[in-house]
């Protein structure tokens, strides 16, 4: 892995509680002089799985970009708080804002390419990036959303069925729920109860992309066979309707998982964020 890595534990409180989120700031060997990029991973993933193992971190560092990674609550190396509030999307966005400022992100200023922050999100991370871009227009410069959609698949997750399955193995009738839980259980680093807390918190704050729309340029990317991103054109329409410049890219032959490593995806993101 190229570039120097500076690990950093996000340890002070936000609104009176410690979010226990694991943050890392990665500096490129040759800095292109552009604003940092914040990477937001998907449900049941982590910065390592979503961005490091897939080659994203190295590709961005090689392009001279400073990169900030954060593990979502209950994921990767972050803590798994017991209170439900720590998992609400609004709470996570507040934590992300604090993380950005701690990493030295400054408000976007015309003519200063190092000011502001670019975002790349995947799946659930795309939802968070969309909302963060809409609610923090002062610091967000451009956004790349992978595997995006207009409704969070987690909102339809059957928590009771999942809990029953975990307790005594009762089969789960809903296919999407069964698939998401299987995905969550396959990774030993996941805290399954924290992940269920996140699902519950998401149900309390469902995704409505039309409610708050970012006004910065947005690149939407999905694999051709990504069923979870089937509504990407609708999301593009929501963005365009409010005046955002929206580009869409479909990667042939890839699905919600395999789109992640795609060179086409990485190159498109690097190019889109290089202005």
């Amino acid at each position, binding site marked *: *892995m*190229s570039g120097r890595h500076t690990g950093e*534990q996000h*340890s002070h409180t936000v609104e009176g509680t*410690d979010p*226990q989120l*694991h943050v890392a700031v990665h500096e490129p060997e040759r800095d292109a002089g552009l604003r940092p990029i914040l990477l937001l991973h998907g449900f049941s*993933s982590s910065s390592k*799985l979503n961005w490091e*193992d*897939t*080659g994203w971190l*190295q*590709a961005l560092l090689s392009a001279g970009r400073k990169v900030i990674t954060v593990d979502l609550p209950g994921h990767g*190396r*972050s*803590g*798994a*708080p*017991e209170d439900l509030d720590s998992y609400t999307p609004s709470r996570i966005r507040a934590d992300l804002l604090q993380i950005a400022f701690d990493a030295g992100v400054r408000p976007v200023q015309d003519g200063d390419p190092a000011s502001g922050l670019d975002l790349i999100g995947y799946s659930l991370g795309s939802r968070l990036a969309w909302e963060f871009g809409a609610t923090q227009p002062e610091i967000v410069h451009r956004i790349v959303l992978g595997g995006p959609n207009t409704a969070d698949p987690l909102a339809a997750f059957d928590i009771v069925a999942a809990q029953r399955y975990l307790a005594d193995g009762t089969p789960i009738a809903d296919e999407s729920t069964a698939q998401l839980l299987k995905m969550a259980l*396959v*990774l*030993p*680093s996941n805290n399954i109860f924290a992940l269920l807390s996140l699902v519950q918190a998401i149900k309390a704050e469902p995704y409505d992309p039309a409610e708050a729309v970012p006004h910065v340029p947005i690149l939407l990317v999905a694999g051709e066979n990504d069923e979870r991103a089937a509504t990407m054109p609708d999301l593009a329409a929501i963005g365009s309707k409010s005046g955002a410049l929206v580009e869409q890219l479909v990667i042939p*032959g*890839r699905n919600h*998982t*395999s789109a*992640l*490593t*795609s*060179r086409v995806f990485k190159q498109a993101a690097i190019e889109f964020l290089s202005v």
Partner: protein
Amino acid sequence: MLEWLVAPGDQVERNQPLVEVETSKSVVELPSPQAGKVVRIHGGPGDKTNVGEPLIVFEVPDNTAGIVGTVPKEVAPKRRVRLSAVLDED
């Protein structure tokens, strides 16, 4: 096997991405363990390769020996960061 990023005859640097592969759990891009010239690659998009099978053959710079890269084993994380460990730190 999703896609090769290098072809036989290519000169590659250490850590340069070689290939995109999909495992039963996730997708990964494998970086080159060393610098050298690619002599041979095994398998193409859609092919299945088992752990331990040859993946790529390099010709190393000093030209003394070829090295066969094999599919790496998945290693379980050694340690999990628990909630209590984080809380105890301050």
